[in-house]
């Protein structure tokens, strides 16, 4: 009975303390938010913000959090002002000190700070590169993010290849890395296109990973990739390599369909005969997107001659397009009539 009462008091007390801390943190965050907003407008406010941080260095992470939250949402001059605040020596020294720490949590905090300001001090570059090879994936990932967000363009390609190779067991972490690189404002688009071509042509990266890379790259909505995707598709089809590369082939066809790249129509029609469900479905989707006479003709043939799942796929994909749906089904009836014996 006494133990029960004691436990109940302790639980209530700890909850009250947590609530009190949360409330205190919220009010501090509000206070610093206002100071950060004012600092973006005038230097006096900025001075008083840093004066306050000098007296209370424990509050530096709160300012960092406010600034990081803002960076996700703002751009242009506002973004530059936020980065200026983050780059103040008081905040920078605080996080660079963490970079040398043995404590891994602190190291990650430091890396995430460097990612926010999109800079690696020259003295820390070699350490950041060595962290990409660290046995702990989260440290390698954080370090790769920092490098990819920075202007160190001579490192980007090798870091991406390394991370693609080591991320086979957790492929989807690559999504964040590729987006970080794509959003890097220091690197011209042409350079990024070349880097992606190198990744897709690299023999060190598995076919499954390449399929994922194509899916991520196509989500950047940059139509200039279509020509390179088309070249890869032609290469796979002409050399009869599709058997080993089903997922890669399906991803390329999906991307070309998404970009409405009709030049690839002939190769995509050839791909409908590849003996793989994912490839066939990707090809059907692309042909439905193209809607050219040749594409519709091919869809009619597939609808009238192939397996149930392909028929279902065509019906499902054309259900919002009555004209296309009618054309395919009506043509199928006429094809059947011709074939039926008199």
């Amino acid at each position, binding site marked *: 009975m006494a133990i029960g009462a004691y436990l109940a008091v302790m639980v209530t007390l700890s909850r009250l303390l947590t609530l009190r801390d949360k409330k205190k943190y919220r009010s501090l965050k509000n206070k610093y*938010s206002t100071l950060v907003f004012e600092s973006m407008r005038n230097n006096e406010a900025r001075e008083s913000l840093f004066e306050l941080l000098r007296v209370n260095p424990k509050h530096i992470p709160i300012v960092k959090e406010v600034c990081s939250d803002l960076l996700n949402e703002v*751009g242009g001059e506002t973004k530059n002002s936020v980065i200026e605040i983050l780059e103040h020596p008081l905040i920078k020294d605080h996080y660079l000190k963490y970079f040398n720490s043995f404590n891994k949590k602190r190291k990650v905090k430091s890396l995430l700070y460097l990612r926010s300001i999109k800079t690696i001090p020259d003295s820390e570059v070699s350490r950041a590169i060595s962290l990409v090879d660290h046995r702990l994936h989260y440290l390698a990932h954080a370090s790769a993010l920092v490098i990819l967000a920075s202007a160190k363009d001579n490192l980007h390609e090798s870091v991406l290849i390394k991370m693609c190779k080591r991320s086979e067991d957790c492929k989807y972490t690559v999504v964040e890395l590729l987006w970080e690189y794509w959003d890097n404002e220091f690197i011209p688009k042409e350079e990024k296109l070349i880097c992606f071509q190198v990744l897709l042509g690299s023999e060190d990266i598995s076919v499954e990973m390449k399929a994922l890379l194509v899916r991520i790259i196509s989500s950047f909505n940059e139509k200039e990739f279509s020509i390179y995707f088309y070249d890869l598709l032609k290469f796979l089809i002409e050399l009869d390599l599709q058997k080993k590369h089903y997922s890669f082939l399906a991803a390329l066809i999906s991307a070309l369909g998404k970009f409405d790249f009709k030049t690839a129509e002939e190769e995509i029609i050839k791909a409908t005969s590849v003996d793989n469900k994912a490839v066939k479905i990707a090809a059907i989707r692309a042909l439905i997107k193209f809607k050219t006479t040749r594409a519709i003709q091919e869809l009619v043939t597939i609808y009238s001659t192939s397996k149930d799942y392909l028929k279902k796929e065509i019906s499902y994909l054309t259900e919002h397009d009555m004209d296309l749906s009618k054309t395919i089904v009506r043509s199928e009836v006429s094809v059947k009539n011709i074939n039926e014996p008199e």
Partner: protein
Amino acid sequence: MLAKKLEINKKDENLSSKFNIVLIDQNEMLLDLLDHELTKHKGFSVIRTSNGVELLNKEDLEPDLILMDMIMEGVNGIELIKKIRSEDRFAKIKIIILSEKLNESIVEELKSLSVNDVIQKPANIGEVIFRVERSLKHQI
């Protein structure tokens, strides 16, 4: 409303205090920043929410402008604009979209719903404030 407009024509610097702005965004920090800029530096009256449905449920609310994201709790941005436009009290309200998820077809759809301005995130806050003021000036 007419009296409000005439007063503004007389003295332009009082423009801000005459208008109510509703901010809808899920990012608390962005709401804080916009609220701070619009109220403290521009003198607008601001109501903020992360949920567009709340706006429709407040019957006494008569904002002059809504600055909203397309993504929010409970309802999709396009649906919310349709609902706003279908209510008489909101018929002439100015709507500015501040969103990341924008493409040509969405912008076309937004135009067809008489949205006054569309701003891509991440945005420069100075530009957002400028566009808010411009939209409200056109209302006069």
